[in-house]
């Protein structure tokens, strides 16, 4: 054996999107140190946007090339990987528009110094005056880069590293809300503690799978499942633990308990980022894990994950009915949507893969638009998220109420919105794969879920405005752009979805090397 450590070959062109994002994130850290505070926000924002656009260009250029497995077998740049990367980058750009918005509130949605004790004079002073921290930009870039790596990771170790890379910045971002600091800090701590547990499970799962297969890359695991003489218990326990780690990020029941608190406490732009991009990353990873590594355990997977999917859909829908806070409502809706996505994962077919990817993109745009509206409905104390405060909003600001109604109808899955086409694709894939009972559960949960959405519509349009109905702020250019992009995408993907369906089908299947 050769003692010298062989450096693996790296295909820099294929890896360039995530390298660009990591690079931009590092430059962002330097900017924090060397650029004067006055212009830092502008510099950071333009730097991040430029980085994302450059990464997107590189993804698209790579799209015309063959599938690549690089860094030995650690990273797979294949069709679905590129599609998911592009989705994360585009949704990331829209989230960044929300994160960078500063005209709604003096200094933006983020606190200047997160270390100042909440509810002290110093805290009130900084909430009222000081401009927010610009660290959010490099943190966001690190998170997005980690997500790209997570979707393209071809072995469990890289996957774990990527998981940590994108999780840690998110924990921090959650704690940075300018208003309701205690809630925000609680959310961050909760997310961090539970997230650490989930990561620990994931790591333990890797150890067990390694014990079973002797390898950590997906292809080798797949081979081992066919001919390994080891005890299958190792495989199943290991797989279960991996699933716990991933389902936590995907916010599936029973690993969902963090979701409502974190969605509510985190600064709304960060919530939007999590709801859109983290979902893509988590399901991207889960899809690759199941489709490449563990598809031969399909039967066992379907029993367990099928049950998880059903209770995720139903619990998310039922608990959404009782919510009185718009951010918590959207959190439970996001849980139920994780259930629908699991249907796509469970189909284990080309159609399942393409419809899941379509769903991720469609849902991402809609949820970004929804949170964009949430950032606009505010009074002197910041965002007014309690539903009773939204009563009569349709009378005060018909334009925004109409947009939000459209978004809610999309969540409810009405035709001519992307919510319908996405759901149709998922259900079609599931029935194609013989999972009719899952579709029935999906239909029932959609029916339940329609009620909370409709309640918000009723609140906005059919109730009289009260004394406390907040005014809707005029959005700054960036929030307006995010809102328009999200709404238009929801409409276009609902009316003419064939372009994106074409792209998801063109992406083909995961490379298996």
């Amino acid at each position, binding site marked *: 054996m050769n003692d010298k450590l062989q450096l693996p070959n790296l295909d820099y062109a294929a890896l360039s999107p995530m390298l660009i994002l990591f690079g931009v994130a590092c430059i962002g850290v330097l900017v924090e140190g060397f650029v004067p505070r006055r212009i830092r926000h502008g510099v950071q924002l333009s730097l991040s946007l430029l980085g994302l656009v450059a990464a997107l260009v590189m993804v698209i250029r790579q799209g015309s090339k063959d599938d690549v497995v690089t860094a030995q077998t650690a990273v797979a740049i294949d069709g679905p990987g590129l599609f998911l990367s592009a989705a994360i980058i585009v949704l990331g750009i829209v989230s960044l528009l929300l994160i960078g918005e500063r005209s709604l509130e003096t200094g933006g949605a983020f606190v200047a110094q997160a270390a100042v004790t909440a509810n002290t004079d110093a805290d009130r002073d900084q909430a009222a005056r000081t401009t927010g921290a610009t660290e959010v930009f490099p943190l966001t870039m690190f998170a997005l880069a980690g997500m790209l790596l997570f979707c393209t990771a071809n072995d469990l170790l890289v996957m774990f590293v990527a998981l940590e890379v994108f999780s840690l910045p998110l924990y921090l971002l959650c704690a940075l809300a300018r208003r309701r600091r205690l809630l925000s800090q609680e959310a961050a701590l909760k997310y961090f503690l539970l997230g650490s547990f989930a990561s620990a499970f994931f790591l333990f799962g890797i150890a067990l799978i390694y014990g079973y297969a002797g390898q950590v890359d997906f292809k080798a695991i797949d081979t081992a499942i066919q001919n390994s003489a080891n005890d299958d218990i190792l495989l199943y326990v290991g797989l279960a633990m991996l699933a716990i780690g991933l389902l936590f990020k995907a916010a599936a029941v029973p690993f969902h308990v963090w979701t409502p608190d974190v969605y509510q406490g985190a600064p709304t732009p960060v919530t939007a980022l999590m709801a859109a991009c983290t979902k893509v990353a988590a399901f991207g990873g889960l899809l690759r894990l199941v489709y490449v590594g563990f598809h031969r355990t399909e039967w066992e997977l379907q029993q367990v994950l099928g049950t998880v999917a059903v209770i995720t859909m139903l619990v998310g829908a039922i608990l959404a009915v009782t919510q009185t806070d718009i951010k918590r409502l959207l959190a439970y809706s996001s849980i139920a949507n994780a259930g629908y996505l699991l249907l796509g994962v469970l189909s284990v077919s080309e159609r399942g893969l393409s419809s899941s990817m379509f769903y991720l993109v469609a849902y991402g745009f809609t949820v970004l638009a929804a949170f964009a509206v949430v950032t606009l409905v505010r009074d002197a104390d910041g965002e007014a998220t309690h539903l009773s405060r939204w009563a009569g909003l349709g009378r005060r600001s018909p334009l925004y109420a109409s947009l939000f109604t459209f978004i809610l109808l999309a969540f409810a899955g*009405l035709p001519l919105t992307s919510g319908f086409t996405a759901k149709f694709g998922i259900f*079609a894939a599931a*029935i194609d794969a013989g999972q009719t009972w899952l579709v*029935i559960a999906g*239909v029932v949960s959609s029916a339940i879920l*329609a009620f909370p959405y*409709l309640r918000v519509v009723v609140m906005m349009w059919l109730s009289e405005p009260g004394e406390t109905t907040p005014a809707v702020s005029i959005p700054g250019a960036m929030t307006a752009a995010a809102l328009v992009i999200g709404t238009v995408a929801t409409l276009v993907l609902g009316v003419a979805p*064939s372009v994106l369906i074409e792209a998801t089908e063109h992406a083909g299947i995961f490379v298996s090397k």
Partner: protein
Amino acid sequence: MSSFPYLTVLTVAPLVGAAGIAFLPKDKPELAKRAAFGWSLLILALTVGLWLQFKPTGERFQFRESYTWIPQWGAKFTFAVDGIALVMIALIALLVPLVVLASWHDADKSKRSVPAYFALLLALEATMIGVFAAQDVFLFYVFFEVMLVPMYFLIGSYGGHQKQYAAVKFFLYSLVGGLFMLAAVVGLWVLGGHTFDWPTLLSADFGVNAERWLFLGFFLAFAIKAPFFPFHTWLPDAGGAAQAGSAALLVGVMDKVGTFGILRYCLPLFPNASKHFAWLGLTLALVGIVYGALVAIGQQDLKRLVSYTSIAHFGFIGIGIFAFTTQAGTGAVLYMVNHGLATGLLFLVVGMLVSRRGSALVSDFGGAGKLVPVLAGVFFIAGLASLALPGTSPFVSEFLVLIGTFTVNKTVAVIATAGIILAAGYVLWMIQRTTQGTTNPKLLEIKAMSRDLSLREAAVVTPLIALILVLGFYPKPVIDVINPAIKATMSDMHVTDPKATAGTVEAGK
């Protein structure tokens, strides 16, 4: 046949009108009303053109247009009408201008935007025409669901007492049915070979069990929509809360999508399952006839009363469909048209009474005939049409349904006939309690109650009464259009009508 894309234009044009009217300034309500009325007349003119070009003896489906939509799923914008769809589209095009005219002042009293009300009416017309014109199952589903949105806002924003509750209940009931249908649509698509094309699906074989499940998925949605007992409870709430104009469209046309759906989708696509579950359809329909009539008799609210009578009428349509004979089927479709005319008229007249009195309670009226004799007379005619008096058009359809059913299932026909007697009960009692007898002294205090039928209102009711009478004596033009489509449906199901000789043989014994 002309190459003019009638069906696309008919579906899109109301939508264009709706968009235009929605953007009219709020402080010019009069302009919005005139625009909506003019636009809906234009649609009516176009529909007349469609009717004249339709050849009853020609192909089953005419005016077929097909455009690519989502090639990956095989979903297309395919429009085509048979006789059944044609008469329903004609009914919509006729009712909408009358409803616009009848609703002239309905939106003024609410604090909401007046142009928006008329824009919603036109948007509703677009989706309703679309749902009948679609020949692609996916497209049909899209219209079927989207149709809920304008109606939801019409009830919820402009309705009366308990409008929020009624609007949400209406929406949720329909949505639940629609979602089960979605599961069935997906199943149909998978088992039918990944296509939504109706003619192609016609020849697909799904297997016994799958066919039954698919049938139930569709049937549930249509039974909620129609509504059949026991899925009917949303209708009295919605009909009671909606303005008379929207209620006339809701009950007169929108609910027919349910019975139309059974005829177009359940029967031809799942013939064996339809025969298997015919007892279910017949039972629900029969219960609906008796139950709807009995509950109608006990109603205190005029609009709720009319809603319940409709549940009874939908029962008749139901047995006409599930009798599986050409006569009964033709009768059922004719009933759908006549019910739209008669109940539409009844709702609009009730609306005129209610807007004068400011209350829909039967007990708030009494002897109104002395104050508004002409209006009370129109009310009486509408009532008689609703109870299917010979000479009015509903009589023809009810009679066809009953004899068509009698040839195959005597028990059902006999029980259904009892519904006619009950119908006389609820209609006549309603008329008596509101317009006859001693005048309620409170009515004298209300100025509006002394104003008889205005010119505008006369313009609303005259065409409807004329049609009810004409079709009562000479239904042939409509039957000629419907009959071939029903015959085709029956042959899709491989059923043949019992020979008329059966009766003579028995008589000769």
